[in-house]
C-alpha cells in the first residue's frame, strides 16, 4: 500500500484488486527479493496438486459430450455450485488485499467488501434464472437467443476474451510475485507451474475438474480463514470490542481506523467504483458460466443465495483478520524490516508488504506449518481462478467463434470440444508468455479494467437482450462495442495508465473508474440504435421476443444440459 499515497490512485489500485492477485502481488511486491525456499508450503501445495490431478483424471473419464465439457453435464448441485461461485470470488486478492487494506486503513476495507458482495443480489433478481432457462454453455447463447448468431456471438466472444485476457495477465503476474515471496521459487517457475496446471485441469477435466478444483480450494480457504479469525477472537475472549480497542491502541492512526478515511473522497468516483464492482460481477464470463452447470432455475437461485452467504461470511472473516493483524502484529518487530536502531514504520515496513498481513498472522496464530498451509492455499486460489478464466476463454473461442461464426453450425460436438481443448492449451501458453513479459509492468489496473469491460459490454448486451423486447442485433452489436471501447478508452486515458504507465503529466479522463459513464453509454446506444433499426431483421427479432420471454420466465423448453 505504501506506494499509493494519493487517495484516487489508491482507489484505482483497489478497484483493480477486485478478484485478483494483481493487487495482492503486483505493485506492492514488485521489488521483493526471493525468499528462502519454504518446504512445508511446497509440500502442502504438492499434495493439493496431486489430489486435484486425481479429480481431473476422474472428471476426464466422465467427460464425453460437449455438455460435459462446458457445463459439467448440468450435474452440479446447488450447494457445490455455490462453493464454486464463492471460490471464483474469494481470490488471493480478496483474502490478502482486503486484509491488508483493513490493516492499513481499518474501516475503509469494508467499503470494498460491501461493493463486491452487493452485485450478487442483482445477479439473482434480474439474471440468474433467466440465464439458466435460456442458455446452454455460454452467456452468448442467451444474448443471441433471438438475435443474429454471428454478430452477437462476435461481440460476446470479444467481450469475454478481453475480460479473460486482462484478468489472466493480472493473475499470472500476481501468481509469479506471490509464489516468489511465499514459496521462495523463481518468478518464471511459478508462472510455468500455474500455466501448465491450468491447461491440464481445463483441457482434460473441462468444467467438472475446474469446478471441483474451485470447490476444494474454497473449502480450504474458508477453513483456514475461519481458523485464523477464530484464533484472533479467542485471544480477545470472543469480544470484538476488546479486539477493536486493542487495534485502536496500537494503530498509528488511532481511533480514525474505526471511521471512513481517505479512500472515498470524491462522490462521483465512489459511485462509479460501486457500479463497476456491482455490475461487473454480473458480466464476468467465468461466473456466468456457472449458472449452466446446475440442473434448473431453482438450483441456480439457491446457488446464488448460498454463495452470497459464503462470500459475506468470508469478507467478515477478512475484516477480523485485518484487525487481528493490527492488534497482534503491529507492535512486534519480528514482522518488520527494521531500520537503524530497530525503528520501523508500522504501515510501510511489514516484511513482504502489507498484503502479507494474513500470511504473517497465520504464523503468529498457528506457527510455521499453518503459515505453510495458508501459503499453499493462496497458490491454490490463483490456480483455481485462472482455470475458470481459461475455460471461459476456451468456450468463447470454440463454442461462440468457431462453431457459430466460422463453421456456422457445420460442425459436430466432437470437433467443437477438441477445438476447445486446443484453445485451452493455446490460452495457457499465451498466458505463460504474457506473464513472462509483463513481469515488471504495473498490472494493477488490469482487473479493474476487466470489471469495467464486463459491466459496460457484457452486462448491457446480456440484460438488454433478455429484458427488453425492442433490442435488435444492430443495437446489441453497436452498443456492445461502444461500451467496450468506452471502458477501455477511459481506463487508458485515466491516471492509472496515462500517467503511471505512459508517464504523461496529467490524466485526460479525470476518474479512475469508468463504469458510471461507460455503462449508461452502452445501454443508451443499444436503446437508440435498436429504436432506429427499421430493418426487416430488426422487426423479426422484436417479434421473436415473445418466445424467448416465455421460455426465460418459465423454463419450458429449456436445455436440460445434462445428457444423462
Amino acid at each position: 500500500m505504501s506506494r499509493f499515497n494519493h487517495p484516487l490512485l489508491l482507489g484505482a489500485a483497489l478497484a483493480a484488486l477486485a478478484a485478483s492477485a494483481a493487487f495482492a502481488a503486483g505493485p506492492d511486491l514488485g521489488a521483493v527479493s526471493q525468499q528462502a525456499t519454504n518446504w512445508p508450503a511446497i509440500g502442502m501445495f504438492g499434495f493439493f496438486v496431486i489430489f486435484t490431478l486425481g479429480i481431473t483424471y476422474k472428471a476426464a473419464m466422465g467427460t464425453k459430450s460437449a455438455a460435459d465439457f462446458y457445463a459439467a453435464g448440468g450435474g452440479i448441485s446447488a450447494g457445490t455450485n455455490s462453493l464454486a461461485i464463492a471460490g471464483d470470488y474469494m481470490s488471493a486478492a480478496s483474502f490478502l488485499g482486503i486484509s491488508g487494506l483493513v490493516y492499513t486503513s481499518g474501516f475503509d476495507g469494508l467499503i470494498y467488501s460491501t461493493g463486491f458482495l452487493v452485485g450478487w443480489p442483482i445477479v439473482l433478481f434480474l439474471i440468474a434464472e433467466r440465464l439458466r432457462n435460456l442458455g446452454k454453455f455460454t452467456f452468448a447463447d442467451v444474448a443471441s437467443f433471438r438475435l443474429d448468431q454471428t454478430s452477437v456471438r462476435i461481440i460476446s466472444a470479444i467481450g469475454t476474451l478481453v475480460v479473460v485476457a486482462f484478468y489472466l495477465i493480472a493473475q499470472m503476474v500476481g501468481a509469479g510475485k506471490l509464489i516468489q515471496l511465499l514459496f521462495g521459487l523463481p518468478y518464471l517457475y511459478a508462472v510455468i507451474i500455474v500455466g501448465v496446471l491450468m491447461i491440464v485441469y481445463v483441457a482434460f477435466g473441462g468444467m467438472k475438474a475446474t469446478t471441483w478444483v474451485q470447490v476444494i480450494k474454497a473449502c480450504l480457504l474458508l477453513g483456514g480463514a475461519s481458523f485464523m479469525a477464530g484464533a484472533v477472537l479467542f485471544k480477545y475472549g470472543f469480544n470484538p470490542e476488546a479486539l477493536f480497542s486493542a487495534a485502536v491502541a496500537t494503530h498509528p492512526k488511532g481511533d480514525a481506523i474505526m471511521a471512513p478515511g481517505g479512500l472515498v473522497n470524491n462522490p462521483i468516483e465512489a459511485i462509479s467504483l460501486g457500479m463497476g464492482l456491482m455490475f461487473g460481477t454480473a458480466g464476468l464470463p467465468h461466473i456466468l458460466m456457472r449458472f449452466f452447470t446446475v440442473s434448473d432455475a431453482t438450483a441456480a437461485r439457491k446457488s446464488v443465495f448460498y454463495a452470497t452467504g459464503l462470500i459475506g461470511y468470508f469478507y467478515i472473516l477478512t475484516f477480523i483478520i485485518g484487525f487481528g493483524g493490527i492488534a497482534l502484529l503491529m507492535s512486534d518487530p519480528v514482522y518488520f524490516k527494521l531500520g537503524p536502531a530497530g525503528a520501523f514504520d508500522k504501515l510501510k515496513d511489514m516484511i513482504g508488504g502489507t498484503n502479507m498481513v494474513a500470511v504473517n498472522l497465520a504464523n503468529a496464530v498457528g506457527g510455521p506449518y499453518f503459515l505453510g498451509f495458508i501459503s499453499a492455499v493462496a497458490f491454490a486460489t490463483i490456480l483455481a481462478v485462472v482455470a475458470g478464466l481459461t475455460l471461459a476463454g476456451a468456450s468463447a473461442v470454440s463454442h461462440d467463434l468457431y462453431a457459430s461464426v466460422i463453421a456456422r453450425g457445420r460442425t459436430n460436438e466432437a470437433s467443437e470440444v477438441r477445438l476447445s481443448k486446443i484453445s485451452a492449451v493455446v490460452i495457457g501458453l499465451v498466458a505463460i508468455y504474457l506473464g513472462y513479459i509483463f513481469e515488471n509492468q504495473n498490472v494493477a489496473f488490469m482487473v479493474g479494467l476487466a470489471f469495467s469491460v464486463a459491466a459496460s459490454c457484457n452486462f448491457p448486451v446480456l440484460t438488454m437482450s433478455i429484458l427488453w423486447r425492442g433490442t435488435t442485433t444492430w443495437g446489441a452489436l453497436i452498443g456492445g462495442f461502444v461500451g467496450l471501447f468506452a471502458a477501455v478508452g477511459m481506463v487508458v486515458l485515466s491516471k492509472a495508465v496515462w500517467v503511471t504507465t505512459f508517464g504523461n503529466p496529467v490524466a485526460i479522463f479525470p476518474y479512475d473508474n469508468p463504469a458510471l459513464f461507460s455503462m449508461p453509454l452502452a445501454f443508451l446506444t443499444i436503446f437508440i440504435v435498436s429504436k432506429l433499426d427499421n430493418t426487416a431483421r430488426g422487426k423479426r427479432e422484436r417479434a421473436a421476443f415473445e418466445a424467448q420471454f416465455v421460455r426465460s420466465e418459465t423454463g419450458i423448453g429449456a436445455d436440460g444440459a445434462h445428457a444423462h
Partner: protein
Amino acid sequence: MTDPMTARIAQNPRFKELVHERTRFGWILTGAMLVVYFGFIGLIAFDKALLATKIGTPTTSLGLILGVAVIVFAFILTGIYVQRANGRFDDLTAELIRDLGR
C-alpha cells in the same frame, strides 16, 4: 417450441400472474439493494462524521455496524427472494405446466 404453444402460454392467466408478480418483486428488491448500498456509499462520501459516531461502546463506530449490516442485508434479501421464488413462483410455474398439459 412452436409458435402456437408460445401464444398459448403467453395468453395463460397464470403466466401473466407469474410474470407480473416476479418482475415486480425482482425490481422492488433490486431497488432496495441499490438504495441501501448507494446510501451507504453516499454517507461515506458526504457525512463521514456521522459514521464515526460511537454507539454506546467505547470503540465500535456506527459505520462499522452499518457496513456489516449492508453485507447481512444483501444476504437476507437474496434469502427472501429465493424463498418466494422456490415456493410461490415455482408453484405457479408448475400449475402453468399442468394447465398446458390439459
